């Protein structure tokens, strides 16, 4: 009995010991008892993400060329920084095995792009690539493209788009083209030609020979058709240019000047301005039936229309309020209201393909700049500031804007000229777009189908 009692007592002591010990630990700062520290991080940096992009594997030059274009694309976006290949520790020899993530972390890479190009038995070029998350130690995307060898630049742009989209969450814009006005010759006898090139300035092609003045070219949603204004036979009118056939045609049979054309989001119609007796109004023309309808009716100048991406609204510029400002109306012309109230005049509004912003040109006595505002006119921000920055055009992802920058002539007229520049909608990463000679009035194509 005694023994049993002692044993029970012994057991109780141990039980108490264990329970109290456990309780003591819990109460003495075990993490479960300690609430997580709450921290609100509201400051950071906006720096390019460092990526390692070694030359793609494969015989010949194509792997190296593709990687070079990918590096250039991503760097130009301002969102990525391509690390110096000389710093790479691991030499990629097989893109089908995971890289040594530690080696890439050591050189501060946050992403790694590995790729391989090869010529197929049928003569086509095949390019595989993988994007690796260095910290997550996982593959973020892996794709394969096949095309004719001459098309290798497009493959490179598609690779860039895939990387851009996977990391930023929005579509890329590298597999796109730009239509613009190429300018050459003396100031008093300027030769202006319609031209297209890849968004990185490669593959420039002149569409017209400069016999007639051309202005304001705009792509249709399939990037196969261009609407623009030309002074053919000294009659300024809107024309259509079919890139596939090279065929041009005048749009509509209006007695007076038509200008400032732009396609609707579905590509089935074109909005433009029609001038009559010193007054211009906005019209919309159905491309299938070639019937037109007037949308504005005001003695002031209404011009530069641009559809919202959903096709329900149109932004345009008008001086009906006494000065050149940005307005918005429904697609049928109703509910016209002014949205720009900032300093100076504001014109050439263009609705973002994303729908969230309207880009415009700000005109003041001291400078021209390109800015953005929300469709209700709020949140106006000036992105660029120059002697003459004007004519914004959106990248298809609504993230980047191209515009014309005209340089002020220095002494003796030296240094004057027009260039195409681009800027991120954050106002960062302003850079010149390479073009053959002077260039103006760029219009970005949609992503090529």
């Amino acid at each position, binding site marked *: 009995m005694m023994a049993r009692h002692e044993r029970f007592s012994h057991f109780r002591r141990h039980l108490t010991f264990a329970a109290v010990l456990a309780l003591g630990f819990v109460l003495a700062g075990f993490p479960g008892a300690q609430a*997580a520290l709450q921290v609100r991080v509201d400051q*950071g940096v906006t720096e390019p993400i460092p990526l390692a992009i070694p030359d793609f594997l494969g015989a010949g030059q194509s792997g190296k060329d593709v990687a070079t274009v990918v590096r250039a694309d991503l760097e130009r976006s301002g969102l990525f920084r391509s690390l110096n290949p000389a710093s790479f520790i691991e030499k990629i020899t097989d893109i089908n095995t995971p890289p040594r993530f530690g080696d890439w972390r050591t050189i501060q890479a946050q992403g790694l792009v590995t790729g391989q190009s090869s010529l197929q038995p049928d003569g086509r070029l095949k390019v595989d690539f993988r994007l690796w998350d260095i910290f997550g130690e996982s593959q973020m995307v892996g794709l394969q493209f096949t095309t004719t060898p001459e098309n290798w630049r497009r493959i490179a742009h598609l690779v860039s788009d895939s990387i851009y989209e996977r990391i930023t969450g929005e579509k890329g814009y590298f597999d796109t083209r730009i239509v613009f006005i190429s300018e050459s010759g003396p100031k008093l006898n300027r030769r202006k030609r319609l031209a297209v090139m890849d968004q990185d300035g490669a593959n420039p092609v002149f569409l017209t020979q400069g016999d007639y003045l051309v202005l304001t070219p705009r792509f249709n949603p399939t990037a196969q058709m261009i609407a623009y204004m030309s002074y053919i036979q000294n009659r300024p009118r809107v024309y259509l240019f079919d890139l596939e056939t090279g065929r041009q045609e005048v749009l509509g049979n209006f007695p007076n000047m038509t200008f400032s054309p732009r396609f609707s989001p579905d590509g089935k119609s074109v909005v433009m301005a029609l001038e009559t007796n010193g007054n211009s109004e906005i019209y919309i023309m159905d491309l299938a039936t070639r019937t037109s309808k007037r949308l504005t009716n005001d003695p002031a100048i209404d011009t530069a229309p641009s559809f919202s991406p959903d096709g329900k609204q149109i932004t345009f510029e008008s001086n009906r309020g006494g000065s050149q400002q940005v307005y918005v109306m429904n697609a049928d012309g109703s509910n016209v209201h002014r949205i720009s109230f900032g300093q100076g005049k504001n014109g050439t509004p263009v609705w973002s393909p994303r729908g969230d912003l309207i880009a415009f040109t700000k005109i003041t006595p001291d400078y021209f700049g390109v800015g953005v505002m929300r469709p209700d006119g709020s949140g106006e921000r000036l992105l660029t500031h120059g002697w003459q920055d004007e004519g914004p055009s959106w990248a298809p992802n609504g993230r980047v804007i191209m515009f014309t920058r005209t340089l002020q002539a220095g002494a003796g007229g030296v240094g004057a000229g027009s260039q195409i520049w681009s800027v991120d909608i954050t106002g960062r990463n302003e850079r010149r777009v390479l073009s053959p000679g002077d260039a103006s009035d760029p219009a970005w194509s949609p992503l090529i189908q």
Partner: protein
Amino acid sequence: MIASGVLHVMVIAAATVAWPHAIEQSEEIPSVVPVDLVTIADVTNIAPSAQETPKAETPPEPTPPQPQAAAPPPPQAEVAPPEPDKPSPPKEEQKNASAPPNPVRPRRKPAPDQQKFDVDTVLALLDKRAPKPPPAPPPPPNAKPAETTVKGLGAQDAFTMDLKDALLAQMRECWNVPVGAPNPEQLIVQVRVFLAQDGSLAQPPSLEPASRAAAAANPYMRTAAEAALRAVSVCEPYKRLPPNKYDAWREIVMTFDPSKMIGR
């Protein structure tokens, strides 16, 4: 994770100590288990308790004129806030955990009357971690919550502010804010971070459930979430955090809010 494992081990150990013992064996297992527990307890718990120990040493001087127990505790709590700004003395005394008992002993004298419990062994163990004079009257298990609660009112605030400042100073260099998305001010992401005592990540950072769901549904949120997770990894190791306050920063929920980084 480590601590969680420790608790599991401990609970299992406690069970092994108690129940199996009831069944048969009794003497060998207890002597083994506490070794692990005490060792880990030293690591995890001594820091906070040791810091408060020195605070207890300074008050004892005014204590004599105020023999009653009710009065002394409040001043300690109020004095506490400024003290955390001087972390060096606590560290020293923490290391000399065996030495401090000398000044503390006088206070222990009245305590023994109340310490006539069946858990003498446990008290001995806990006393090593918390040789604090004021909470001596109550039983040891209550001593801990008293420490965090009483001292936390003032000291924790100032201290956590310092911690947050240190973290923010580091995070702002690592967080690459995705400001180009539409409505970027809405891309708020919460990440839970577990740190090891050396400031390294104890495990990969993870999205809080709401952020994880949002990231799965929206590519912009996914981008924001990945940027936040990347920031946590890029910032490793977190060397600006005081090691002796490890318990306060071992688990962190970081809320990444880009609204102040927009609209230049």
